[in-house]
């Protein structure tokens, strides 16, 4: 129960931090760096949450429950794609390609949102969330 509350609270808190209201952005360096930070912070949060689900026993539950397995495997798949995209974004930013970096980091973040959605479902189906 405390674990579930902690997972939800930490997720919500980090998402709150990530999205301050700041108006419309142009495709600038500032925009790109903001998106990169957003994606990296979200990755850290997602990995922490995934770790908590693993500690809660989700891998074992997934072996026995095909519904949990489907959601969990999907979450891991999205996470893998997100990490690849984030690496690509970092490379683009390093080269000063701000618009491409911004889009790539945004995409990495979108992949993490999909990961989070599946992870929540996996945890819920496993009785952990």
């Amino acid at each position, binding site marked *: 129960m405390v674990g579930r509350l902690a997972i939800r609270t930490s997720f919500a808190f980090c998402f709150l931090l990530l*999205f301050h*209201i700041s108006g*419309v*952005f142009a495709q600038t360096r500032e925009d790109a760096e903001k998106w990169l930070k957003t994606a990296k912070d979200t990755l850290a949060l997602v990995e922490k949450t995934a770790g908590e689900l693993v500690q809660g026993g989700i891998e074992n539950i997934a072996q026995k429950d095909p519904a949990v397995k489907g959601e969990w495997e999907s979450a891991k798949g999205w996470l893998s794609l997100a990490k690849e995209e984030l690496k690509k974004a970092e490379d683009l930013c390093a080269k000063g390609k701000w618009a491409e970096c911004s889009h790539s980091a945004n*995409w990495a973040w979108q992949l993490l949102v999909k990961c*989070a959605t599946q992870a929540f*479902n996996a945890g*819920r189906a496993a009785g952990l969330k």
Partner: protein
Amino acid sequence: MVKIKKVSKVLGGIGLFIAGLFIGSLILGNITAQGPYDRALEIAKARQLNPDAVENALKTYHPTGVLDEYIMFSSGGHSGQVIVIGIPSMRILKYIAVFTPEPWQGYGFDAENKKVLQGTNCDPLRAKLTWADTHHPAISETNGDYDGQFLFIGDKANARIAVIDLRDFETKQIVCNPLGYSNHGAAFVTPNSEYIIEPSQYAVPQGGAYAPLSEYEKKYRGFITFWYFDRKAGRIIPEKSFAVEAPPYWQDLCDAGKLESYGFAFCNSFNSEMATGKPLGSPNPLFEVGASQNDMDYLHIVNWKKAEEIVAKGGAKEVVGIGGFKIKVIPLDVAAKERILVFTPEPKSPHGVDVSPDGKWIVVGGKLDTHATVYSIQKIKDAIEKGKFEGKDKFGVPIIAFKDSVEAQVPIGLGPLHTVFDNKGFAYTSVFIESVVAKWKVGEWKLYEKLPVHYNIGHIAAAEGDTVSPDGKWVVALNKWAIDRFSPVGPLHPQNFQLIDISGDKMKLVYDMPIPLGEPHYAQIIKADKLKPWTVYPEVGWDPIKQAKSPYATALGKERIERKGKTVYVYATAIRSHFTPEIIEVEEGDKVVMYITNVERARDATHGFALGGYNINLSIEPGEVGFVEFVADKPGVFPFYCSEFCSALHLEMAGYLIVKPKKK
């Protein structure tokens, strides 16, 4: 003597023992005899149901003949239909055929309702459609309350709106929007159903014209249409309707203001970036990236009362749109100049917009945000009145600063979407990513509770929840994914409607209902006693499209066949258990026009009319006149029969259409 005393003692002891046994058996017998609820408890125990589960079962179960307190009208998604569900039993009562032919109801097969399906003002492309993506039903309102007279619903895929008459739960009209091909926030109604609101979604060049994507900003436009509804006629009048031109920001959901916000409508948008997608090989970002770059999009605030006045004064231009059909449009520059259209920022690719029962607050769910953002109508009105804007967008639309319009942001979780209200000042917001319903207090702006749902809730419906006086009691979570809730039925899973009891301090999940008919989006829940549907048509010989006596009604004994040149008119009756006439003889190539009057007066005494080989099936309810016309272009003998089980001799309720070959 001593021996006798001993024997007496023993006998006495035995007697006492036997008496004790007897009394004991009486007492024990009463304890172990089955009480009225013992059997129920045994069943609960055998099924391993805990007390909560038993309580939930008791809340939804309805004994035979007991009716539901509420009726829910849900979109039927891709089925193109509307689903009618009793609350709290969650029993499906009807599928109303709207945009899709439905053979059991004879919808799309009767000559009159075929015309309904083709639309009032639909271009040839849309007149032939046989599916729809129905989204948001709206019950007609009077003074901001559901009045139970009509239901409206939109087709997102093809920008159409349907009108359903709730006297007989049948579709009477479909209109096509001449300005574009997609809508989303449709339908929503103004508080007296003066207008049915339909915003576009995916911007296109206005009126169905062509323009390349490179001209997106210059030529592509959205629209927010206000369809005028004539309640007496029960029809939308396109000639009295108008649209407000909008930037190509992909408008989304809408809600009409009420009470304090009466006269305004509010619509989300989520592509203020004006992203145009990623052609193959292009460096452009995908839509889901390009359309979510900005932290804020624009809440569209439309003063429809003022728009109405501008139209009346000739301030709108007449646009000839798709199929050559016309509609009055207030151009974007006029809308901006007259402050008919004003923006305020809304967070992060928002999705839902919902006005509180008192009309004071407008709640927006930013689907990639974590808040329910609450705007104040008073602040918005003040800003417009004083001309207090922080600037204009590219199209000249004034923008009220976020700080000047927002009242509060309630942190509620990941992926908030839609909000409904109860009668105790609480709001209930669906939270998609986290799969919860979040309950928070209006005015306090404080989160009270989150209830997990299964899974990925989209819309949420509450009893009388969109009105000025919600009832509380029930909320239904319209979940997108069912995953593991039901027996597997292949890769395509049903949706999951979950009934939630909100009558107590804590929300309680009561029931799961699979919906295996398209993806419903929204639903509205009305008190059942507000609906006054007919159980038979008011008179024998009724035309359900005109809702009046049909000139082609046929009384018993007045049946006839009349030939006028190459057209044969059949005036028939249907009654248990025969059609009159039973034998119809025509010549190959004749046009056959049949009017079949169901002369029954008993409830449920519906007759079907199925004609083999001609793709015809009618459903003729008691009192109704069914109307079918076709060309008998195939010689032969074609049986027809009653296709709705009606009586003991239902099988004998049949006849023959005899088509004599042409003389060579």
